[in-house]
Structures are given as C-alpha cells and as structure tokens.
C-alpha cells in the first residue's frame, strides 16, 4: 500500500503534513498511510521529524498544512481517545501509585472504572511488576518506571498505539515481553506505529516501515517488498581455501566480509549466475548466496545524504525545546534548503 491511496477508509493517513519551528521545517509535505492491523516501523535518523510527526498525529502540535485522518475521518477528541501514546519525553505522576496511575489513564481514555482496574492488573502481571502496584512511581527503578510508562499507553487496549522509541531503556527480557505484547495487539486487529533505531528488531517485528529523513518521506511500504525492490544485491562467497576469491573483471565491489565468507555488492544490472560461473571456474566455491540488502543497508542508503549535514530541522527544534540555546551552524545546507522550500509554498 502506498501513500497515493490516501483515500483509504481504514488505517491512519497523513496527507501533506508540514510543520515548521521558527522557519525551520521539522516535517515537510509528509504523506503516509499506516494500514490497520499491523505493526508499522517508523524509522529515520535522529531529528528526522519522527517525534514531531507523532505529536501532530495526536494534535499536541498543530500542523502548518496537511491533514491527519483515522479510518477516513479527521482525527478528533473522540478518535484520539482510542489511541495510545508513549511520548518521547517520558513522564507520569511521580507521587501516584502505579496501579492508580494506570487506572487513571485508562479511564481518561474512556474505560469504565472496573474494566480499567482489571486491565491494569492484567498488564502489570504480564510485565512482572504486579507486586509493585501499590508503590509510588518514584519508588520504582528506572526500568520499571519505563515499563509503567509503556503500559500507560497500552492499558486501555487502543486501536492505534503510537510509541516513540518504546524499547529504549528496556533490557532484552523486557523487550521480549513488549514485542510479544505488540504482536498480541496486532493479532487482535490493533495497529501499532512505533519508532526505533534497532533495525534488526524492526525487521523481525514490522510488516511495514516508513523511513523519513529531514522531515520528508524517503521510503515506505511492505518491508519484504522494499527489500525485494532494492536494486542492490549482496553476494556471499566462501571458497574451499577460505581465502577471498579473485574477483578480477567481475561486476563486484568488496564489502565488509562476514564471519567465514567474503561479501560483495553486485553492480546493478549484473547477472549473479554469470558471476557464479566465473568464480567456480577459478576455484572451488563452497558457498554462494545472493542476498537482498538488510533493512540496515536500506536505511543507510535512503538516508545517505544525512550522514554529514545531519538533522537540521530536528536539531533546531530540540535546541528551542530544551532551552539549551544551541546555535545552528551558520548557513548549513539543510537550513537553506528548508528555507527555500518554505518560500516555494
């Protein structure tokens, strides 16, 4: 599914969403469709505009242009109560007891008291902190506070969970628990949109992803389709002698080798079968594989221009937000570009 199908009556649709902070675009003309009933990875380098986008979806920030729709209708107070939100800036009421806190949030999202209490107990049990339910939040360890924060976004069984880096701060065991919980939600037809920098995990968990950089969509869609569609192929070769093969004259470029095999990227348009024949004619090939690029590689390729000039808009926004007053690099490329785009609208 592509953003072009923004007329969809299911799922979340962003259409031409832009948001600028003091003239610097954090999100620019972002159109995106998140189909219902799956786990959606929202990826991008630091400061790409992921947090801003989530805040726009939840109406914490008003977009300068563009619309956000859920199931074909603009998102309003009523629909937002069916969302769950884990903000980037973590924060709950520190003096409130864990259980009371979850019940409060569940009720705030519209759950009746009894149901809210039952759900809160169930979730605490599931995440192994039921014994701390009567403790005040500020008496919990950081990891446990993090779990409670995640639960506050899920306790009311939202139709759409928007989670801003939910796995950060969780140990492998708790990550596992959360992954299972998200899969559960998905299996019951709920939608999860989450941002993360752990790309191997995203590969395992998400059906669809979107990669944004500098506030613009770089790639989105089904993860497998994206990997299939990537023009680049990686060739893995292990020779009997365990030494790197002679690639003279072949359309291969060396890559970082694997544990006991050499890796090459295959030049676009080259035929891998031909490469195998040549290699096999030179020495004994024990192992030959043609791999699609990993999400990691796709990500780096899609955001390649970010490497140096980095996350202009996001950095400017954050500098403003935390009051650190970081001055921007004068005349940095990103800033100029954004300004031009602003002018063009």
């Amino acid at each position, binding site marked *: 599914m592509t953003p072009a199908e923004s007329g969809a009556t299911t799922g979340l649709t962003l259409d031409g969403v832009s948001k600028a902070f003091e003239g610097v675009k954090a999100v620019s003309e972002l159109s995106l469709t998140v189909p219902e009933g799956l786990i959606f990875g929202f990826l991008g380098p630091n400061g790409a505009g992921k947090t801003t986008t989530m805040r726009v979806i939840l109406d914490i920030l008003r977009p300068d242009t563009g619309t956000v729709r859920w199931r074909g209708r603009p998102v309003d107070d009523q629909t937002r109560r069916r969302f769950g939100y884990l903000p980037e800036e973590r924060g709950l009421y520190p*003096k409130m007891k864990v259980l009371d806190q979850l019940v409060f949030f569940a009720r705030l999202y519209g759950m009746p008291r009894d149901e809210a209490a039952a759900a809160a107990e169930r979730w605490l049990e599931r995440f192994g902190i039921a014994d701390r339910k009567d403790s005040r939040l500020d008496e919990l360890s950081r990891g446990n506070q993090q779990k409670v924060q995640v639960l506050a*976004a899920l306790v009311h069984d939202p139709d759409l969970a928007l989670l801003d880096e939910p796995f950060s701060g969780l140990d492998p065991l708790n990550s596992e628990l959360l992954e299972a919980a998200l899969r559960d939600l998905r299996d019951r037809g709920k939608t999860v949109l989450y941002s993360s920098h752990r790309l191997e995990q995203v590969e395992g968990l998400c059906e669809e992803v979107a990669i944004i950089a500098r506030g613009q969509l770089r790639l989105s869609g089904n993860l497998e389709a994206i990997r299939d569609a990537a023009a680049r192929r990686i060739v893995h070769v292990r020779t009997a002698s365990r030494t790197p093969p002679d690639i003279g004259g072949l359309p291969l470029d060396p890559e970082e080798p694997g544990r006991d095999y050499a890796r090459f990227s295959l030049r676009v348009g080259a035929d891998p079968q031909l490469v195998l024949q040549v290699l096999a004619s030179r020495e004994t090939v024990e192992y030959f594989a043609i791999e699609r690029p990993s999400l990691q590689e796709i990500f780096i390729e899609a955001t390649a221009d970010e490497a140096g000039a980095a996350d202009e808009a996001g950095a400017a926004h954050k500098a403003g937000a935390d009051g650190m007053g970081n001055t921007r690099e004068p005349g940095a490329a990103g800033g100029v570009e954004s300004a031009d785009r602003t002018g063009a609208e």
Partner: protein
Amino acid sequence: MNVVRLIVEREYRTRVRSKGWIIATVFGLIAIVGLNFAPTIAETVFGGRQVRIAVLDETVAQAGATSGYLERLQADLVETLASGEPRYALERASADRAGMLAQVTAGTVDGFLLIYEADGLLITEIDGRPKFKLTTLEALGLAERSRLTSALSGARTFLDLEKRGIGGPEALELFRPVVLDTEVVDIGRVEGEQAGESWGLTYVLVLLFYMTLIIYGQYVAMGVIEEKSTRVVEIIVSTVRPFQLMIGKVLGLGLAALTQYGVWVAAGFGLLAARGALSGLQVGPVSLKFAAIDPWLLVAFFGLFTLGFFSFAGLFAAGGSLVSRTEDAGQITGPITMALVVVLFMAIYSMDNPESAGAVLLSMAPLTSPMIMFVRIALGDPPAWQIVVTCVVSLTTILALVWVAAKVFRAGILMYGRRMSVRAVIRAFR
C-alpha cells in the same frame, strides 16, 4: 465518564493522600489546639501560683478596727487560677513591719502590703490619704502589679467617696461603665452593641479570606506547573482539552485546600464550643460572639469566599501556566501575592465606609468583588441586584481566567524548562 470529574478526583485524592498534605493538616491542628489552650498553658507554666499577700494597715490605730482597704481589695481581686482557687489570697497582717518582713523572708506569705500615713507632706497626700508599699521576696510580674495598682485605686476612690457620704450601692453605681448605643438610620434596625462586634467579626473573616488565598494559591500554581515539570502533559493533552484539564486542576486542588481548611475551622470552633467560649471571645481589642452571628452572614461569607477563592485560584493557575519548572514558581506567585495584599487593603478601607463609591465599584469588579462585597454585606447594605452582579462577575472571572490559563498552558506544553516569552503568550491567543 466525565473527564473533568476524573481529573478533579485524581487531583483531590492524590493531594489528600500525600504526606505533605497530611503533615500540614496535623501541624495546623496542633497549632489550633495549642493556641486554644495557650492562655491556660501559659498560666500554668509561668504564673499559675496563688499570691498570698498580708495587708498591714497602719492607718487604723487600734487592732481589730479597719479602714476598709482589705475588704475592698478582697471584693475586687476575685480572679481564679486554672485550678479554680483564688489567684490572690489577702489576709490581715499578723505582725508589725519587722515581723511581716521576717514572714516574707521566711516565705510564710509572698508579700506584705503596707498602708501608712504619709510622713512628708507630698501634694497628693495633703488630705491625709495613705501611701502604699508592697514588699515581696521576688519581684511581681507586670500584670500582677498593674492589677494590684488598679484594685488599690478603686478601693481608695470608693473609700474617699464613702468619707464624703456617698457609700454602698450608690458608690458602686458611679463605677458602672457607659454603654453607647448606636443606631444606623438607613438600615432601620437598632444595632446597639452589635455594631462593634460585626466590625470585629468582619475584620477577622476578611483576614481569614486573605490568608487562605495566600496559602492555597501557591498550591494551585504548583499543581499546574507539576503537569509540565513531570512531563506527563503530553499524554494528558492527547486525550483531554486544556480547558478541561485546567478546570479539573483548579477544582480538585481547590477542594483539597478547602478540605484542609474545613478541618481546621471545624476543630477551632469545636474547641471554642467545648470551652463554652462561643458566646464571647476576646481577640485583642475585638470581642467576638459567634453564637450571635446572623446565619445569613455566614451563608454570604461561604458563598463569596468560594467565589473569591476560585477567582484567585484561576489567576494562580494562569500564572503557573507560564512556567514549567517548580523552581520558577516564585516568579509568578510573588506578583499575584502582591495583588492580594492590595485587595486586602481595599477591603479594610471599605470597612470604614462600606457604601462609598469606591467600595461599591470594587464590590463589582473582577477579583476584588467577593472580598469587598462581603465587607459590604456585613457592614453596609448593598441592594440585591449588586450582589447578583458580584456573583455573575466573579463566575465570569473564574471561567475567563481558567480559559486564559488553558490557552497559555496549551501554547507552552512543549517548552520544557523554559519560561514563556511575551511573544509566545500573545501568539497563544491568536
């Protein structure tokens, strides 16, 4: 489920269950009980002892005869100690000057009062009136000394009058204090002694009003800042409108404050009632007769108190919306507290002339209206329509301030750690 009710409930519960709130309430109670028993305690600790004084009257020649001083003093000094026994025990001296001095030194009596004829002819003693001298082992307290002095003055005047042929009940009649009856014609009821009392009561209630706002205003401002300082705000505003949040905050925190206050006031009145002091309590120069308070005045007080409380709570909430760190709270509560002091002064000036143009105007202006209308109801005679105006103005003020607070709050949500610039505040209302 109503969202506002949910927020009110959370604010109220969290507050009322917090250690800080409970400790403050208990300390407040201890202070109230302490103040209530302070006079008794002070007496027990510092002066709860009977003073035995022997009176040696040298103005009478033969033993057994009396000049009347001892009897007059006994009739006047009738105070009792907390234990119920008389504070002053006066007896006739059993020996002469030297013998009495010995008794004082030995501690048989606390002191001996010598009444003697003046030797040298001082001007005041020309008509043969006696002089007085008190000899004690330990210096008398100021209160006891002035009490004895006034008793002696009274006795001497009484005996002087008797000498001139005015005695007994006739003389006592001369000592009766004057009662000034006052009548306020346009109210049409004779207030008599009550006028002074309602002035005193109004004064006390206005002060109470002011102190409550000072104490609990901070409370409300902090509660609003908490949303941002704990950063819970992002989750909250994604489900709740800022106006609902603010109304809920102000109501919840306000109710928690009023609960604490109610506990204290109830304890205070309960103790007064237990001591039987409701019929009359002397607070400095002001005498209060709680039992005699017009119930309608109490209704007016609680109604206007609530309106005034929430008006200022709205103002403190708006102030709290401007900052996002607890440490910055002082920057905004300071100016509001100053404004409160101004309102207090206005109220006190209004008490002198509750129907002056200024008082009438202020009793219908935002923020000042509840306190000053209360002064006017207590001491003046405002027409009903003006009271209605006051209520309407106050309610509008509350809603407007909460609305402003919500707007400012909404605009400042993501400004963690920063104070809002004037520009950002103005932008919030566009």
